[in-house]
């Protein structure tokens, strides 16, 4: 079982590293969202600073959405999804390997680049750390929500649009908790309660996600 997990993780990481351009796409997209926002709002650092955390979060969400279509669709198109579904290893374990690889190659670089986005948007330096912490804590939850939606839409013909419509409403609680944390930090209030909420969400997502995602993939067989 662990062999299957590591074999699939290694495969997905290797494939991602071979296609560097695909790796950079979500990053470039997030930079563009931030850039367009600064251009649209104009040279008003005070206003930008107030919006910065929210815009960064939305940029990360949209970049995630862009990358999610590549989680299961290539496997479904080249037939390797069939090989995963007929494998003796439990499907939730295989799905866990795929989503972990996805988090490492898509979300981790995005998190690593948030200082860049924050700088572009004039976010006060005191809020950089809260922003990073909320992203680190919330992205596992986002990745699993996204993975379940991607699994549900993988057999649909125009899955990409459907994926956005399915996923974005589900991310509302995460977004509210994350920006609540940053707001609390900006006003000098304790950040612990909303951060604990985010952490709880991620723990729940990581434990239920593999099973939900496996069930969603099997549902597509009908």
């Amino acid at each position: 079982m662990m062999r299957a997990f590591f074999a699939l993780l290694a495969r997905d990481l290797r494939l991602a590293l071979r296609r560097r351009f695909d790796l950079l796409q979500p990053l470039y997209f997030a930079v563009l969202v931030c850039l367009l926002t600064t251009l649209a709002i104009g040279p008003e650092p005070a206003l930008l600073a107030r919006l910065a955390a929210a815009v960064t979060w939305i940029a990360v969400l949209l970049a995630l959405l862009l990358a999610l279509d590549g989680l299961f669709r290539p496997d479904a198109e080249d037939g390797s999804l069939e090989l995963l579904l007929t494998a003796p290893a439990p499907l939730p374990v295989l799905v866990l390997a795929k989503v972990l690889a996805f988090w490492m190659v898509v979300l981790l670089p995005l998190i690593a680049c948030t200082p860049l986005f924050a700088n572009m948007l004039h976010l006060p330096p005191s809020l950089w750390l809260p922003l990073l912490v909320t992203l680190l804590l919330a992205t596992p939850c986002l990745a699993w929500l996204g993975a379940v939606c991607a699994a549900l839409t993988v057999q649909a013909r125009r899955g990409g649009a459907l994926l956005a419509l399915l996923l974005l409403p589900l991310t509302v609680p995460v977004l509210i908790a994350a920006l609540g944390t940053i707001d609390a930090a900006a006003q000098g209030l304790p950040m612990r309660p909303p951060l604990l909420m985010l952490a709880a969400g991620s723990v729940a997502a990581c434990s239920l996600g593999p099973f939900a995602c496996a069930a969603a993939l099997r549902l597509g067989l009908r």
Partner: protein
Amino acid sequence: MAELTSELPPLIATHGLGFAYAELALFRDLDLCLRPGTALVLCGSNGSGKSTLLRLLGGLLLPDEGHVERAREHTTGDPAAIAWLGHHLGLKNGLSVIENLHWYCGVHGRNRRMTPSTALQTVGLDGFDHVPTRELSAGQRKRVALARLLLSPAPVWLLDEPYANLDPQGWLLVDRLVDHHLRSGGCAVLSVHRPDQAAFEGPRVLLDLDAAR
């Protein structure tokens, strides 16, 4: 319906299997029983449900009625493993040939008597280990998929048109592989266009899906 006089319990069997796409009923009340060492050859016109039946057997599609039953392994109690060869071969273009075999062995387990390199030699792709899969021809890709079958420890082979895209030597190769698999106690289900295409020696049952409708 399809039963051979072998005393061993079946590796895979269907009971009252029925499936329909919307209005189009493909088959109903299909009872199949595949014992170790036997093969089932599916033939029929395009759209007669060869691939559908294979997908049902592999658990990639759920039947409308009836069910598919697989033998349990003695030691673990898990259902007998399946080696799947579909229309889409499941090869990653971004990986080399040997890397494609490695991840398959990781996920599906490996036959102890085979290594990826010897499997490639057996299917006639000697020296192709580190060639990117995207550079292979359709026939060569099919051969890589056949090498995967050789590596698989699964007793049940489900092959969707294994002869397609191959040259006459490739057909012989498929026959040899199926023969060897049957003799070592496995079973295989193959879909073919012409019944005479499946020229392996082992015992087989022919199922014409046009007649089964």
